């Protein structure tokens, strides 16, 4: 099969990128220098980790000691969620990447969270004081 006369390589025309990937989907700055952002993100993550660890050494601190343990749990889960989202969005480039990749990942994550919350509910995990599994 032959193509119309042309002396240009087929990929030389970059005016239309539809259906062609550049490793980063639709965003424009996939190859921009994010080094500064990465370092700031790592410092932020280290700070949040230090806060998490501080709950062990200072369990009576006002910020997380309310509600007889509920405050501590809420605080730690919030820190965990912040770290999770920060790593996924910045270090794993979901912030800059094609939305389809976010859908692929979050479909699995949301399915896992939903299914296992249901399992924990079935085992009465959220019922205070109950014995979940009899020996």
């Amino acid at each position, binding site marked *: 099969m032959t193509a119309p006369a042309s002396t240009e390589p087929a990929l030389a025309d970059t005016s239309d990128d539809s259906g062609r990937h550049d490793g980063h989907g639709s965003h424009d700055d996939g190859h921009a220098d994010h080094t500064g952002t990465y370092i700031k993100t790592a410092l932020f993550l280290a700070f949040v*980790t230090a806060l998490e*660890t501080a709950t062990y050494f200072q369990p009576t601190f006002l910020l997380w000691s309310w509600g007889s*343990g509920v405050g501590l749990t809420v605080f730690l889960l919030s820190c965990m969620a912040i770290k999770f989202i920060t790593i996924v969005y910045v270090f794993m480039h979901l912030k800059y990447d094609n939305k389809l990749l976010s859908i692929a990942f979050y479909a699995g994550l949301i399915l896992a969270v939903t299914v296992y919350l249901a399992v*924990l509910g079935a085992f009465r995990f959220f019922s205070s004081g109950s014995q979940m599994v009899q020996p």
Partner: protein
Amino acid sequence: MASVTVPIEHGSGEHGLSGLSPIDHGHETNTGISNTKLAMWLFLGSECLLFGGLITTYLIYKTPLPGQLGPKDVFDIPFTSVSSFVLLMSSLTMVLSHSALEKGDHYRCQVWLAATALLGSVFISGQIYEFTAFVREGLGYTSSRFSSAFYTLTGFHGVHVTVGIIMLISTLLLSVRGKLPKERAETLEIVGLYWHFVDVVWVVIFVVIYLIPEGVPG
């Protein structure tokens, strides 16, 4: 009318690297995304289900029976906090390695890759030390339902980290041999995705398993 057929060659010639698989950049796909990258993200999504199951099992079994060792008796939070910090910093060195390769700075790429593998090895060494200490305290794999669930969860994570280290060293060797040109930065990015996921899983384990062993109702 004369016609000329122009073959599309991706990633060959410029680097003179024979034996390399074609570079993905520029290949057309239905989604507009690299198939390899999409496959890795789908794999990571499925891994959420694996670790979700293991974490759930641990939460159900975490309460020890009377007379058995529980989380509070064995966990060394300061030590685990340092391990968590080490793994967190390995994510930084991983992205710096990828960033360096995209700029064509192969030396820095290799240095950061080696640093990532080293930090991962430190984490694994810490986990081996932790397991050894627990066993010495009397918490074997079959000592209780808590210990079985704990070792299975953290052991699976440790295996993932070990696989990640092997991938990092393999990629480092590729780079040292000149088989990881700037145009193949996506290969390193995919290894990085796996590594960051391992880190993300530890973020969850560190909080749910270590820091709130008694905080969650049950």
